[in-house]
Every structure is written in C-alpha cells, then in structure tokens.
C-alpha cells in the first residue's frame, strides 16, 4: 500500500491536558469512536509531566463545545467549580486612576445588525459621562450588580445574556478525561513517550512508550504542552516569538479563598493594569484565581510579588505563589506531515482575552470536521489549517496589542514603550488608520476565520476613549430616531435585567442544588 492510500483509522493524541482531552473528545464524538465502525482515538498521557492549567476563562464557544462533546451543563458547573462569565472588566488601563474602567461584554451593542450605534454614541449630545459599553449594552449593568446571565428556569446552555465560563482547569481536565474514556470511547494510556518512529516520507508511524510499546496511528496530535514534543522537538518547526509586540513574559498566580461562603462571585473577568503588566481576577464558586502577568524587563520578581500582594491584601501571606514563564508567540506552522499541534505546543499568549482555550476549541473543531480520510488529502488539509491558524494567531496578537496602544498611562516605561510604533503590527496600524474616520465594521474582518468580531474592537476602542471623527461624513448620522430608540431600549433592558436576574452566586447555588433543565 502506498502512503497516499493509507486511510485514517487511528488518531493518537500525545498529552493529557485540556488541549489533549478536548481534541480527543471532539474527534471521538464526531467520528463515533465508541462504535465498532468508528475511528480509533488513543490518548497517551505522561505520568511525570504536570499539567500547566493556567487557562480558567473561556469564550461563549465553550457552550457549543460542551454540547458537541455531550457534557451536561449542570454536571460541568457542579464538577468544575465553574461560574458564569459575561465579559471582561478592564480597570486602570486608560489612566490608572481608581475610577478608570471599561467593559468588553459578550452581548453585541444594541441594534448591531441594523445600524452603527457607535457612530451616534460618539456624536451624542448627552454629557452624562456614561461609557460606551454602559450606553449600548445592558450587560455591563448586570456585571456591576453581580447578576447571573440567566435564571434557574432557563434551560441548559440557553442564555438571557450571552455568557461564557470561568472554570477550574484541573477539575475540567478530570471531567473531560472521565467523559472521553467512559462515554466517548477514547483509549487512555498513561506512559511516557520516549521515541518517535517515522516512515520514509517522514510521517510519524508510531511513538514508543516506556511500558506500552509502540503506539501507531495515521494522525498524531501534539498536545504535549510547552515541550512541543512532536511539532517542536521532532519536526523542529521554528517558534515565532511575538515578544517584540507583547511584552509579558512571566506570570505569578495564587488561589484565593472567599471571605465566606456567601461572598459575591464576580460575573466577569477583572483585569487591572499594574506598573509592568496586569492582574487577572477570576471568581469560581469556591475560590478566586488571581495572577499578575508582567514583563521581567520592566519589573523584578520581588517587585512583582509586592504588586500582587498589594492587590490580594492580607490573605496573601498564607498563599502559595506559582511562577509560570510565558513565551509569547507560536510555531511557524501547526500541521506538519501527519502531525498537528494544539494548545501550548502550538503557542501561547498572555491570557488577556481568554484566547488560549478558544484557540484549542477552534483547532479541535477544525481537525475533527476536516479530518482527512486518507493520507492523500492530508497535505491540503494541513495547508489550510496552517493558513487558518496563522491568521487567527495574528488576529489575536493584534487584538491584545490594541488594549496597550490605546492606554494613556505614562507612569512606567512598560506602558509608554508599548505604544512605540515599531512594536505595533502593520495590520493593526492599518485598521487604526481606518478607524480614525469610522467605527470598526464587519467589512474590516472579512475572513471566515475571524476570532474577534467588529463589536469587540468597538468595545475596546471606545471603552478606552478613542474617537472616530465623523465631521467629514455627517451624512452617516442621518437616523437619530434609530439611535435614540436603541439607547432607550438599552436602559429598558437594564431595568428588566435588574428585576429578573438572580445574583451569580444565587444561581450557581441553585444549579448545584436543583440542576438546570435540558429544555
């Protein structure tokens, strides 16, 4: 049999973190692994390499991922210490003062599909100092009140306000493992991979393990984390650093218990700007995860610890601080021969917009849906996968950088250096020029593979005080009736939400007690 006619019968996933299990699960669910006729999926997990598990914030896409895997939302919330996330609150990113904050909510601006409310908001006469997200989206008010995005009557995965999750990465990995092995038919081997065996065409034929011999397959998914065992070490695919654009290179993280069991659970990720980076604050059901990501060029570890200690307050002294090095960037390609990398083995960026898990989900989905039936078409799939994900990584980098270039902070070199033009990708500079005269629109993002929609750019741009100048095109502001209606509708929705939604904590307690209905 020639290489080309080799059908894909077995997928071998190397690595047992979230990336490994999500990819294995996605493939196993779609390709009927638990049935006789289905594709075989084997996951090899090292017993000696610990799981990194920094990603604790998701996108709303995680709801579809859970549905695709066949995991109940109630079970997920109960077992993963999960809570609802309705966006991100960015504090002290613009000028660093106490009152400085804006939101990037998950609900689109009012009437987004009917007209460009941003243009009217920029030119409104009201001088009420309301922020963009406050005036065009009811979700900010929900978050500020600590309210949940739905009620106990809302079915699983349905929303009153669009939402994602915060989750305990370790517990989520365990749930995925249990579900994949017990429900989806994924074979689980705990062993260290000690060698990679290849065919003449340089495809991987098998990986050799310590105690389980050679494990062979037709497609190998590298989910081995930072070590990038197959794509990096074996194939030597170069790493493309973006440290010149995004300066963060270190994370210090702690897990912080709540003051008491009734303490409110924030309904959004809180990201607070600091002297050499920013602090994430994620509220789960039973603890908070707090971490300082900073650039070691601008801060010593001692300084960074002091910054984190100040944010956390008194409980800090009793906590274990975990230090995680961050190498910002990604591999030059992700799919080489019959090997594709997902997760940290593909790349990593600071967790500012929870891009880590969403890129895993998108990769797992594309691999599963585009799974080549034979070796003959694999190179084409690989080429398309590489194009798609190079584009996506670049877009994420652009969007993260956007948060830095709009800051007006001058208190440290970290912030001023971040605005130096040579650190800003051309693709982003070009968009910024367009937006001088109009707001971000869907036309600015025409690929099928977009990660962030135009609305996200609007929330960050105008949340950070950017002004698009409509004085040369006043004709674009010809329907104030539409705009006023949308603003009014938004206030109405804020009131309604305040009346009908429980707090995040209340709803999570109820879900643990009663569960959500599937309909």
């Amino acid at each position, binding site marked *: 049999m020639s290489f080309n006619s080799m059908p894909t019968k077995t997928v071998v996933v190397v690595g047992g973190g979230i990336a490994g299990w999500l990819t294995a699960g996605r493939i196993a669910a779609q390709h009927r692994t638990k049935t006789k006729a289905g594709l075989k999926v084997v996951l090899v997990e090292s017993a000696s390499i610990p799981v990194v598990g920094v990603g604790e914030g998701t996108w709303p896409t995680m709801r579809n991922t859970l549905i695709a895997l066949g995991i109940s939302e109630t079970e997920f919330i109960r077992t993963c210490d999960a809570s609802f996330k309705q966006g991100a609150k960015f504090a002290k990113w613009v000028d660093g003062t106490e009152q400085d904050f804006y939101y990037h909510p998950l609900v689109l601006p009012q009437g987004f599909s009917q007209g460009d409310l941003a243009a009217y908001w920029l030119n409104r006469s009201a001088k009420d100092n309301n922020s963009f997200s406050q005036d065009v989206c009811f979700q900010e008010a929900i978050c500020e009140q600590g309210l949940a995005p739905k*009620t*106990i009557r*809302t079915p699983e995965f349905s929303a009153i306000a669009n939402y994602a999750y915060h989750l305990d990465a370790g517990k989520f990995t365990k749930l995925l493992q249990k579900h994949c092995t017990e429900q989806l038919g994924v074979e689980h081997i705990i062993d260290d991979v000690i060698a990679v065996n290849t065919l003449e065409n340089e495809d991987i034929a098998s990986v050799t393990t310590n105690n389980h011999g050679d494990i062979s397959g037709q497609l190998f998914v590298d989910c081995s984390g930072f070590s990038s065992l197959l794509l990096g070490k074996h194939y030597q695919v170069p790493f493309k650093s973006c440290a010149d654009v995004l300066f963060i290179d270190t994370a210090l993280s702690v897990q912080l218990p709540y003051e008491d069991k009734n303490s409110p659970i924030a309904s959004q990720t809180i990201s607070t700007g600091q002297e050499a980076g920013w602090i994430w604050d994620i509220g789960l059901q039973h603890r908070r995860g707090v971490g300082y990501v900073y650039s070691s060029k601008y801060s010593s570890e001692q300084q960074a610890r002091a910054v984190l200690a100040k944010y956390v307050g008194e409980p800090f002294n009793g906590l274990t601080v975990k230090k995680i090095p961050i190498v910002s960037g990604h591999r030059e390609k992700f799919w080489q021969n019959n090997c594709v990398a997902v997760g940290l083995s593909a790349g990593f960026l600071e967790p500012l917009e929870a891009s880590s898990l969403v890129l895993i989900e998108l990769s797992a989905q594309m691999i599963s849906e585009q799974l080549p039936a034979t070796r003959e078409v694999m190179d084409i799939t690989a080429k398309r996968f590489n194009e798609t994900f190079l584009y996506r990584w670049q877009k994420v980098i652009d969007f993260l950088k956007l948060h830095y270039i709009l800051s007006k902070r001058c208190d440290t070199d970290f912030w001023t250096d971040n605005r130096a033009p040579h650190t800003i990708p051309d693709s982003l500079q070009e968009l910024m020029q367009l937006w001088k005269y109009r707001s971000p629109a869907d036309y600015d993002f025409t690929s099928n593979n977009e990660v962030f929609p135009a609305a996200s750019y609007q929330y960050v741009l105008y949340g950070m005080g950017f002004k698009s100048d409509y004085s040369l095109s006043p004709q674009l502001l010809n329907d104030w009736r539409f705009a006023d209606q949308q603003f009014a509708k938004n206030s109405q929705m804020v009131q309604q939400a305040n009346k009908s939604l429980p707090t995040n904590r209340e709803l999570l307690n*109820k879900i643990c*007690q*009663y*569960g959500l*209905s599937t*309909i």
Partner: protein
Amino acid sequence: MENLVAIDNKIHKNISINPAKVALHGEKLNLIPAVVSEFMHLTVQHPIVFTKHGETGEFVCSALLGFEVGENLFWQNGQWQAVYLPLQIQRQPFFIGDAVDDDSTKSGDYVVCIDLNSPAINDSASTNIPENTSSEVHALFTETGEESEYFHEAKQCLAQLLQGKVDNQRLIGALKKLNLIQALSLEVTFINETSTRLNGLYTINQDKLAALTNEEIAELHQQQLLPAIYTMITSLGQIYPLIERKNARLNG
C-alpha cells in the same frame, strides 16, 4: 403578603372561614398549580401545562387561566365563573407546613397552617366584625375545642395536595426520563389586534410519545400515567375557548 402560622385550637378557637371568599385567593392568578388527581376536572375548561418553579427551575403542573401575569379570565363580577375550583384555591386559607423540632430542624412531620391575612377569615373575637354576618361561616373548632367538620374537610383537601405532589413528581419524572416534555410556543392575536407571546409553558411532545417503543408505553401504562398524559394533551384545546373568553372581555 401571606402570614402563615401553625393552627392552635386555643389561639385560633374563635376563627371561622367564609367559603364564599375563598376563591378571592385566585382572583389575580393566570397560572394555578394543579395535581394529577384533579386533571379530569380541570380539563373541562382549562389548558393544563407545565411551568417551571421560580425558585428551583423544576417542572410543575399548572392550569392556565389567563394570558398575562395577574389575569384570571374566570374571575368575573367578583366571582369564580368556572365549573371547578382548583384544589390550590379550595384549600385556602390552609397550608401544609413542615413541623419543626425544638432545635429548629425539620422533623419530617407536617403541621396545618393558616394564612391569617386571608380575606376568607372571620375572627369573631376581634372588633373588626365583617358587615355581612349573615353569610354562612364555618368555625375551625367546636365550642369544646374539637376540630369542626369543615376543618376536617379542609385537611382532607390538604392531604390530597400532599399526595398530588408525589403523583406529579412521578409523572414529570417519567416524562423527563423519556424526553417527552417540550416547550410550548404560542403567539396569540386577540380581537383588538394586540398579540401576546406565551413563554415559559411546556407540554408533552406528541411525536415523541407516538414514537415510544412498546416496552416504554407499557411502562407508562403500568405506572398508570397514560390517563394524565392524554388529559394534558387534550386539555390544550381549551386554549381556544380561553382566547374567546379574552376576546369577550376586550369587547365587553
């Protein structure tokens, strides 16, 4: 606001109930919780649907009496104008409470409580004697402190509701297990061209019911759930007379 207290034959010896005013408790209810044992009575005039409990999100059975919150189309001219008064109204102003031990834990027993704010209560010991003293009222206790016949009947009504809770759970449990519950989406336009969308109502999925295996149907039959299932399905036809009722009121 309700003011529920456990009934005590000394404290409440002077209380009596005016049955004519019991129905006032349903005056502003468009949904009234129902139990399986009264489905046959309800289906004569009311659609029987599932709704979700506001506190727990769990399914409950309800009779539909109106199209918006606060609208009971069977309440007319200060009177209940339906052939059957649902148990949840009949039992007013009595409630079942959990008996509590001295250390304030639930003992598992029940106590009968009364809503002291109920409009159906006459308290002859108070100075606030109702004007219409000629209407028939029933004391809770006899002069010797024994339970009256009326109170005894009221307690039977509560017992039926208690059993109904168990019956309802059996029905809902079986339907959930077989995935037979579906959302009921209704857009109704009334005679004055206004329309309303009924949200939060659920019913039985007839296609899925028809597709059940012989074994599954036999199991529903053995559990004696089929009458309740078919009664709920046919009761949905009562939506149309209910719309007529609303139109008549709009024309009124």
